[in-house]
């Protein structure tokens, strides 16, 4: 790795950038093998992120290739006959993390899974849309239910960050639940005022 400019163009691209950035922070906290880092990442992001452990291994290899992580074969704790790859920060890791922290996020496109269906739905699709919206609302509730509660006593920086992460997830899911319920209600109200049944055009 010769410069920050090179880092910026190679690793801060694509949809996995947030995970790469978060991995840099975890590496700086302490080195770890892939499984350990994946567990720590899952604990920080929460269950709703649905982190794939394989993604973590893949991203660590990428970071190692770009010089932002150092992969070392080290003996396993408690079994020195066997080894595993432990990832360490490099001299570039801290600066790369700071660069990622100060880089403004690109505005992500709004692409709700149901958006395309809503955009092109025919009147006779209304029943299917309502079922899909109800299922989506429930899925959001299930995700909200997975968010671990706080005890309101966050005093450390780490606890504050964890609480704010949970708050972000909850706020997003609440908005989605409200939207799904509102849309379902609007479709129902429309159907109630139709003189002919929606399926008549089939």
């Amino acid at each position, binding site marked *: 790795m010769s410069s920050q400019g090179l880092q910026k163009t190679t690793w801060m691209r694509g949809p996995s950038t947030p995970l790469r950035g978060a991995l840099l922070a975890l590496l700086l906290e302490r080195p770890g093998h892939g499984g350990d880092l994946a567990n720590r990442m899952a604990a920080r992001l929460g269950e709703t992120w649905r982190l794939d452990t394989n993604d973590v291994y893949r991203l660590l290899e990428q970071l190692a290739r770009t010089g932002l992580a150092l992969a070392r074969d080290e003996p396993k704790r408690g079994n020195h006959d066997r080894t595993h790859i432990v990832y360490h920060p490099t001299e570039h890791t801290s600066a790369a993390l700071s660069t990622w922290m100060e880089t403004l996020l690109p505005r992500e496109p709004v692409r709700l899974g149901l958006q395309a269906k809503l955009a092109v739905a025919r009147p006779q699709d209304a*029943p299917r849309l309502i*079922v899909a919206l109800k299922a989506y609302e429930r899925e959001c509730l299930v995700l909200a239910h997975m968010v671990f509660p706080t005890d309101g006593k966050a005093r450390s920086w780490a606890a504050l960050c964890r609480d704010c992460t949970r708050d972000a997830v*909850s706020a997003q899911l609440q908005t989605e639940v409200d939207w799904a319920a509102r849309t*379902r209600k609007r479709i129902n109200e429309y159907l109630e005022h139709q003189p002919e049944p929606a399926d008549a055009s089939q």
Partner: protein
Amino acid sequence: MTQLLSFLNVTAGYSDGDTEVLVLGGIFLNLCAGVSMGLYGPRGAGKTTLLRLAAGLDLADSGSVLFEGRDLAAMTAAERRWLRRGAIAFMSCENWRPPRGESVLDHVSAGLLGEGVSARQARMRAHRALEQVEFSQGAAGPTRGLSQAGCSRVMLARALVQEPRLLIMDEPAVTPSLGDRDRFYALLRSTTGERGISLLAASEEIAALHGFGVLASIAGGELCSTEPQGVVLPFSAPAGKSAQPSASGGGEQG
């Protein structure tokens, strides 16, 4: 598990001039003993209507609300009042207007007076309840002028002192501080969980309801819940406010 509270195809609404407004449209819900259920919904979604029906403060337009298998509508008003002084505790911050000059301890112990409990015993139990909600330092102070966080704790103490089997709380922690809110809900979950009290609490914030056994949302007169049965919706007749049950919320209702 024993079923404590059941809603069987419950509808409720009100008249707005010539228009009938449906607030709850065919709600099915089962809450088992010892289970906590968080009810999320925006303002006007029907949360308070549902809670008031559960507490027997209002009666459904159609369908049945059962508490421990007994239809609340079949009880006399006096029986329902009696139920709310014992097995069901209903708490709402919004309508909390304690008398001027009343102390926190008097307020909490007042729930026991007239129940064959001596004034001394009532005050001792009130003291214990205030300790449990971590508000014993405010026992001698007046109820008027309490902060929102203090009000929530005193209300919880007043509920606990009557040793209910079902605690119903409507937006129990409306406080500008997220820390106060989360602390209160943690206290609510722990105090009711330790005693096996079923909990039905409504909030406009999903985040406040983390940690509840069942999470449900209410909107457009329908209930949607995290329970698997809540997803069941007939594919062929989804439109309109027909007699179709909307969804089940919690428990084992199919």
